[in-house]
């Protein structure tokens, strides 16, 4: 063993792996995908800091346009001799598969690190299971699996060592989120260990095989039937030796570190009769459960699979105890239609082979085995706890154990699930188990990560932190699970018996059962807005009951006040952290305070003295405000609110409502749609009440321009025009005024806010142009506290919804004030407060929602649009509305193209049938239908009426053609196909497909919501990222200019291309959307979308768009091919020449500004280049827009 001081640190799996991978590679090809993105982010950040690898050179980290691209670069870099890696997960790994075959086929050493994640099937999931890695198991890569953060670090190194020794490329994988994001205190690897594990001779051999003109060879041949087969078999010796190479690396590693690993590692009773076989983080839970059961005298054990491919059958058999009689193989994946899941099949195969083998000792090892069953567990990070493990062992004691079972769910359809006792608990009392409920915005998770670091660094305790997040991006609830204890923590499952519960937001008490997991006698820390003597009487009945029944000790603090008073705003993290340490007893109070202060210095020191002092002050002022709550009698007269109102549809209330209150785990299989189809119009039932302040309307000041309605990202501000008579039964506080628009003279006008759906972003107030003449600090909309308004405005909102919607056929849609009276069919999304994308989606839903079908690329819009439980895509009173689907990230344009081709086909067939059936349904009707070009809203409505007539008359016709037409008749009404996504999709991963689809000439509409960064995965650079912006994967500032997607599209000549920025010119945006949809061909709208990832003031983000356009950073233009057909220049530049320095707009955004704080010289250089980019781009567009178009005739010399 190398003797050195052991260094421990709390890290998550991604960081632990990235540290090793960075050290051992020269080239790293990256692309963002959850949950693997942080590995790439670490690598990029370290490169930008100039951190060298093991050999003293700084690795080249390159971001690619897709995982397919990353795999290609990986392959190429390996082929030319560099040690190369990549990081990925899920669909990303699938995109790499073609290259994986190549890399393995060419016996190329490399290691890919995978944070294993579910694959999108009936729905996408970002969470962990082995669907991805098992899908790649046939590629020829070796697969090494880590079960914990410590292992992830260690096996990363072992994989790198073994690949060089064996020439077999490796996928090193560990469970997404459970390991990739779990924080554990681990023993760090010294450089000397890495040095000793990597044989430079093997590195030189790898280099010597490189493609180089100095030693030219040919690789990548096309082979024929005569030799391909034999050549494929030529690699067998390498695979035969691979397992030994891995074990040798493991043995060497054991000598160096004292941590010993086996290919198949058995743990449990030496005389075990029942053994569970599995791989990944679940091994830790089974390990813990086995210890518990063995202590109780049970003969059980666990066989942990570390080397999954090549599957070393003999080693597997050798690892089993001879006493084993029954085996349960657990797969964290599902292969519908298979004979069994892959690991189960492997085990069956090797046991059977052992029985058939001529090797007596092998035979003897398995002769007692009478049962091998397989089961599925933990898909999409589904909880897998000791209770479930016990049920798996119990199943093996049955005379007829259930096979192909599931555990952890209630499968009431095909009865596959094992029953388990949820009260079974193996956790020792020595472990401090703390749960914290927080809001994303209050800093709870950050504080908990900090606490883990303090305890991990400053005490002998082991620690573990795991964090459960929300499906919403605004008002999101976070639940932190922290464990501390004297022994290594193997509990890879959520806490169900907490001895400390922190509720950091009072409002959770009325929504969630925060004390469900509190164990008897636990400490409950509550952040309350009330005085201590008022707290008890304001607790819901369920909370009072649990406090009394479980004998909880309750402590309260008005953390918001303490935070506010100390300049921390709504971030109560430091205050609550101080309370936790004061109460939890992990450290003495004085020691804890000292350590928190030290941690503050460490965490915030680099951000400046002010930040440190602000936090230190908060610590000092906390404990005087922390009080123990006297426990009263259970007297409360109110209960927790229902998740959904009683009048919500059954499915919404009973199924989606459960998901909402974090009880979705309890839903049985039978209640879930079997094909991934869910109802729309469901977000309206979810009253989130996340805003502290909401806008209120002043009718006397309002100019009724409709701008507030247009920009509202959450469709919570709406306007209606109606007859005065409608006010007869209006609530007393319902506001109304005379309409100003002469087209509606004599009628009334109301702007109404949905108080419980508003996120309080304040964008409406910012754009409101109407100021109170006596007090210009007030506008027609002003923010006021939500709570006092909640009841009255809820009543007003309900009343408002029942007022009639306008007649769509008579609205002047070119005027925002009238167009914005259209009902939005995209409402109350879970997007970030102040989102820059959603106003565009709402607009498109208002204009075309009742006849649109949407292909939505994976990204923010697919998450706030389609992440369960509810969706913002809505329906109108007729039951019409956008039909929406998400296929993948990379194929969205093609997916939408499929919609178009299919719909056109159906419409064409309907037209053919209609013509044939003219005699039957009436020639006049047929002609009217066929001759209606449907170019206006009125035409569409006429067409719908005629089609209704047609369908009515077809009902009575008994012919095959009539039946066909009846099923297709609705396609005679124009359908609007929209292909929607972000810049990551359009500029990068989906660009090839987008290009092809745009070139098709088909009538489809592409909306690119350009946030200039991969927003959904946390702000990685895309080709839309402007020069000089700091983003993940561009930590040193994006060195190149933004791609001009619009200009590329214009080169086709027949594509309508427009660039808009709603905040800069809303009427331009409206015009573009109408023109694009009307254009009978492909259209591309590139819409500037501000984003939380820009580091801007979200409240003024729309008006900031004006600065961006005025500086020329974003151009407004339209390229309309119809103008070219009229002999005009198709390009119209709709914004003026830049009049502001780009610096003045850029440095209002942290993404640019922060580079001046990290790399000031680089910032200066990039700023100058960015200004030059903008100047040159403007000059080019000015030239293009001004040029005289030719007539297509070229004069030739006589």
């Amino acid at each position: 063993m190398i003797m050195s001081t052991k260094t421990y640190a709390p890290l998550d799996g991604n960081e632990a792996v990235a540290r090793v991978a960075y050290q051992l590679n020269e080239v790293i090809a990256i692309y963002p995908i959850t949950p693997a993105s942080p590995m790439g982010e670490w690598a990029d950040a370290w490169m930008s800091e100039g951190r060298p690898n093991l050999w003293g050179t700084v690795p080249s980290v390159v971001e690619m346009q897709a995982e397919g691209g990353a795999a290609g670069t990986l392959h190429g870099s390996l082929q030319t001799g560099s040690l190369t890696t990549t990081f990925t997960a899920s669909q990303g790994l699938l995109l790499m598969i073609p290259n994986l075959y190549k890399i393995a086929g060419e016996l190329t050493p490399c290691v890919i690190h995978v944070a294993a994640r579910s694959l999108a099937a009936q729905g996408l999931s970002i969470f962990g299971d082995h669907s991805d890695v098992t899908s790649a198991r046939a590629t020829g890569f070796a697969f090494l699996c880590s079960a914990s953060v410590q292992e992830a670090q260690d096996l990363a190194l072992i994989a790198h060592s073994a690949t060089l020794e064996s020439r077999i490329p490796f996928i090193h994988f560990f469970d997404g989120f459970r390991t990739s994001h779990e924080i554990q205190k681990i023993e760090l690897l010294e450089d000397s260990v890495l040095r000793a594990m990597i044989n430079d001779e093997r590195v030189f051999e790898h280099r010597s095989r490189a493609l180089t003109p100095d030693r030219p060879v040919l690789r990548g041949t096309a082979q024929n039937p005569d030799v391909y087969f034999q050549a494929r078999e030529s690699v067998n010796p390498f695979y035969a030796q691979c397992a030994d190479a891995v074990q040798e690396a493991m043995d060497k590693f054991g000598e160096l570190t004292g941590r010993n690993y086996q290919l198949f590692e058995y743990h449990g009773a030496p005389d075990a009769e029942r053994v569970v076989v599995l791989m990944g983080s679940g091994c830790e839970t089974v390990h813990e459960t086995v210890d518990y059961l063995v202590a109780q005298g049970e003969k059980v054990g666990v066989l942990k699979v570390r080397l999954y491919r090549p599957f070393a059958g003999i080693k597997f058999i050798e690892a089993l105890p001879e006493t084993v009689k029954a085996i349960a193989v657990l797969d964290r994946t599902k292969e519908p239609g298979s004979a069994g899941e892959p690991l189960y099949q492997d085990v069956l195969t090797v046991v059977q082979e052992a029985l058939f083998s001529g090797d007596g000792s092998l035979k003897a090892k398995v002769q007692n085995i009478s049962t091998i069953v397989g089961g599925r567990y933990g898909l999409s990070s589904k909880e897998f706890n000791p209770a479930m493990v016990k049920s798996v062992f119990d199943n093996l004691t049955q005379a007829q154990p259930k096979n192909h079972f599931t555990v952890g769910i209630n499968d009431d359809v095909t009865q596959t699930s094992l029953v388990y006792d949820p009260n079974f608990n193996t956790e020792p009392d020595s472990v401090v188990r703390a749960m914290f409920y927080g809001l994303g915005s209050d800093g709870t998770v950050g504080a908990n990560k900090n606490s883990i670091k303090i305890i991990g660094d400053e005490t002998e305790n082991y620690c573990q932190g795991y964090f459960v997040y929300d499906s919403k991006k605004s008002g999101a609830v976070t639940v932190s699970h922290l464990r501390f204890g004297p022994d290594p923590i193997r509990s890879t499952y959520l806490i169900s018996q907490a001895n400390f519960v922190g509720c950091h937001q009072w409002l959770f008490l009325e929504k969630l059962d925060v004390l469900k997991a509190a164990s008897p006698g636990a400490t409950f820390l509550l952040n309350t807005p009330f005085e201590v003597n008022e707290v008890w009487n304001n607790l819901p009945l369920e909370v009072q009951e649990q406090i009394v029944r479980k004998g909880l000790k309750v402590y309260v603090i008005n953390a918001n006040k303490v935070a506010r008073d100390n300049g921390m705003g709504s971030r109560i993290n430091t205050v609550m952290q101080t309370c936790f340490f004061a109460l939890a007893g992990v450290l003495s109070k004085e020691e804890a305070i000292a350590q928190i202060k030290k941690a503050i210095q460490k965490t915030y020191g680099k951000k400046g003295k002010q930040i440190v002092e602000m936090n230190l002050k908060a610590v000092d002022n906390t404990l005087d405000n922390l009080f123990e709550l006297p426990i009263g009698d259970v007297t409360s007269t109110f209960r927790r609110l229902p998740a959904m109102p009683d009048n919500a549809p059954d499915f919404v209330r009973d199924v989606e409502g459960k998901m909402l209150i974090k009880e979705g785990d309890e839903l049985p299989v039978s209640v879930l749609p079997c094909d991934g189809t869910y109802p729309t119009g469901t977000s309206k039932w979810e009253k989130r009440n996340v805003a502290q302040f909401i806008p209120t309307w002043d009718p006397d000041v309002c100019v009724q321009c409709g701008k507030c309605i247009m920009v509202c990202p959450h469709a919570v501000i709406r306007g209606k025009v109606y007859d005065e008579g409608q006010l007869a039964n209006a609530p007393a506080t319902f506001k109304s005024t005379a309409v100003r628009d002469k087209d509606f003279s004599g009628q009334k006008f109301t702007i109404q806010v949905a108080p419980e759906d508003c996120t309080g972003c304040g964008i409406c107030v910012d754009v409101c142009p109407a100021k109170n003449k006596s007090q210009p600090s007030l506008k027609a909309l002003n923010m006021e506290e939500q709570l006092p308004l909640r009841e009255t405005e809820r009543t007003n909102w309900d009343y408002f919804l029942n007022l009639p919607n306008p007649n769509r056929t008579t609205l002047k849609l070119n005027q925002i004030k009238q167009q914005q009276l259209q009902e939005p069919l995209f409402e109350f999304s879970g997007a970030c407060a102040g989102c820059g994308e959603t106003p565009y989606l709402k607009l498109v839903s208002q204009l075309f929602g009742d006849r649109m079908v949407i292909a939505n690329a994976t990204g923010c819009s697919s998450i706030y649009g389609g992440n369960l439980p509810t969706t913002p895509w809505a329906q109108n009173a007729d039951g019409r509305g956008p039909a929406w689907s998400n296929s993948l990230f990379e194929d969205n344009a093609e997916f939408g193209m499929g919609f178009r081709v299919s719909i056109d086909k159906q419409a064409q067939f309907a037209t053919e049938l209609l013509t044939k059936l003219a005699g039957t349904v009436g020639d006049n009707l047929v002609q009217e239908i066929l001759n209606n070009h449907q170019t206006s809203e009125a035409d569409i409505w006429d067409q719908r009426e005629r089609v209704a007539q047609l369908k009515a008359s077809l009902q009575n016709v008994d012919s095959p053609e009539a039946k066909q037409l009846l099923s297709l008749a609705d396609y005679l009404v124009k359908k609007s196909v929209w292909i929607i996504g972000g810049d990551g999709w359009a500029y990068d991963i989906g660009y090839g497909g987008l290009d092809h689809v745009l070139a098709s000439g088909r009538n489809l509409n592409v909306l690119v919501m350009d946030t200039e960064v991969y927003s959904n995965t946390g702000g990685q650079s895309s080709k839309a990222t402007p020069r000089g912006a700091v983003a993940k994967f561009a930590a040193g500032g994006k060195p190149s200019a933004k791609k001009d997607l619009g200009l590329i599209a214009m080169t086709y000549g027949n594509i309508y291309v427009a660039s808009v920025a709603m905040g800069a010119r809303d009427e331009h945006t409206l015009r573009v959307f109408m023109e694009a949809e009307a254009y009978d061909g492909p259209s591309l709208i590139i819409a500037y979308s501000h984003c939380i990832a820009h580091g801007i003031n979200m409240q003024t983000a729309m008006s900031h768009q004006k600065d961006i356009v005025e500086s020329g950073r974003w151009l407004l233009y339209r390229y309309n091919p119809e103008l070219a057909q009229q002999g005009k220049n198709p390009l119209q530049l709709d914004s003026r020449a830049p009049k502001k320095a780009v610096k003045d707009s850029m440095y209002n955004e942290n993404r640019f500004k922060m580079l001046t704080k990290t790399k000031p010289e680089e910032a200066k250089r990039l700023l100058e280049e960015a200004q030059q980019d903008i100047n040159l781009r403007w000059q080019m567009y000015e030239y293009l827009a001004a040029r005289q178009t030719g007539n297509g005739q070229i004069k030739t010399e006589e």
Partner: protein
Amino acid sequence: MDLTTTYLGLNLKSPLVPSAAAPLTENLDNIKLMEDSGAAAVILHSIFEEQLEKEQYELHHHLTYGTETFAEALTYFPEPETFHVGPELYLEHIRSCKESVNIPIIASLNGNNIGGWTHFSKLIQEAGADALELNIYDIPTDMHTTGAQIEQNYLDILTAVKAEVSIPVALKLSPFFSNMAYMAKRFSDAGADGLVLFNRFYQPDIDIDELVVRPNILLSTPQAMRLPMRWIAILYGRIESDLASTSGIQHGKDALKMLMAGASITQICSVLLRHGIPYIRTLEQEMVHWMEENEYESVKQMQGSMSQIKCPNESAFERVQYMQGIQSYHPDSFTFAP
């Protein structure tokens, strides 16, 4: 022509010194151009205590806003090991300037309350600045703060900074003291090596169309030099501190007036923003031309010649003159300046 002068113990080749203004002095190339155009020294733009604090808060806010909320996007920015959130960049700028030019570099430090930031002055000295201009930028609006408290605050800051450094310290002042002469004396006694008269405070405008207050910064006009010129003239010879003028210098003759009033140097800013940095040479030529025509030999010869203690009509600088001016005003005789 001998244009040399001394200011804060620095021997300068002329009294023309570009004053603290970020657009002029942020860029190293500009500093070099100033030297080439005849600037005798450069006063760098100010490092603002308030701005540094604001930037720290902003950076912290944006690096934490929206984080740890959504499983796919736990943060939105990379977080490097170090941020230059303190005065480092400014100090680096001082170092670069010192390496690039031979003329003295006077740094400028701006704050309005005693605090840790006064320590920056030491760092500024260590970075190589030849002197420090301390700009106490305060517009008191608190109705509970007395004039005496404000005056003491100024003195406390000056004392704190003087305690940190050995390089000369000039104090840039506002004219809004009850008794400017008394305060000038106190600052001088407290160790101010120079007084810079006067700071031009931000005076916003009202936009009646948009109903907003606009931070509309105006370049100084020739009228702006009257106030500092009077006070320089009054103070000259009565206090130990050197006097520097700032505001309103548009022509060589303006500079000459200031020198005659008693200024050691004349700081120039608006004129350079209007005409460009090389205009320093024009100002210098205008001065030389006038001095030659009027047979002056040196700047020193004229410095303070028209101060209150030396000028022929000393009461002209006092209030009574204003009264006489008003009383002798007749609308018919008033003409607009061209």
